[in-house]
């Protein structure tokens, strides 16, 4: 079974993540789209690692997951602060810096 199937799936998931990132209005869902993209990249890493018979790909995925955990903690804290101050999760309304 060729590895390119996995890569194609990874690309599709990444694309869907981008679409979610662009289209969604809720800041939490936008954040989730980013996680979706990270997941897609993880799949590509593992698939490449498998194709080359090397383990470095898995190590990278490990680090990506750790960084994603840290990012989620800080990002969600920011979301909480925004929700508390602006009373809204809609990114359209978070426009203080907009011209």
């Amino acid at each position, binding site marked *: 079974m060729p590895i390119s199937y996995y890569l*194609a*799936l990874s690309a*599709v998931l990444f694309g869907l993540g981008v679409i979610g990132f662009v289209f969604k209005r809720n800041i939490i869902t936008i954040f989730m789209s980013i996680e979706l993209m990270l997941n897609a990249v993880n799949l590509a890493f593992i698939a490449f690692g498998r194709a080359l018979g090397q383990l470095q790909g898995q190590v990278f995925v490990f*680090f990506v997951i750790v960084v994603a955990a840290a990012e989620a903690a800080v990002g969600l804290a920011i979301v909480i602060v925004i929700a*508390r101050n602006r009373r809204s999760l809609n990114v359209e309304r978070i426009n203080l810096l907009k011209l």
Partner: protein
Amino acid sequence: MTPQLLIFLVLAAIAIAGAVNVILQRHPIHSAISLITVMIALAGLFLLLESEFIAAVQIIVYAGAIMVLFVFVIMLLNAGAEERTDMSRMACYVGVPLAIFLLIELAYQIGAATLSMTPQPPAEDVTRGLSMLLFQDFVFPFELTSILILVAILGALVLAQRGESVPAKSGRETIT
């Protein structure tokens, strides 16, 4: 059709359906659950690629910890369904074409690629080799990530702490 291909197709279908559902659902909780489905399907794919350890970590950390954080925040903020607004000009003229272009481009490039699997050492050696890599070759980045996580915890604490000046929210309102 080999069993592997069949399993792959099923898991891929679940993953894509979940990812589409993340976008289509309007309530963040439903999006979150769809995303969890995607993550579990991906863990299944990792198993298919013979990386059991990463599959377990994917479920424990991603689905079991990070997404729990999302679900908690959604519940605590009592986030409601997303408001429908007109698509911004930016999204309409730049975002959509770019996203579609990205999908087509990636699919095209990957379709052209021919990479086949090379045989891998037996599964026990994979986990062992992974730990060797993590704790010998990559030990410095590994230690750095622990500092990163510590900083992230402190940052989250400082950010989310309710200051004295901000009055507590009264009642249970739905934030959209």
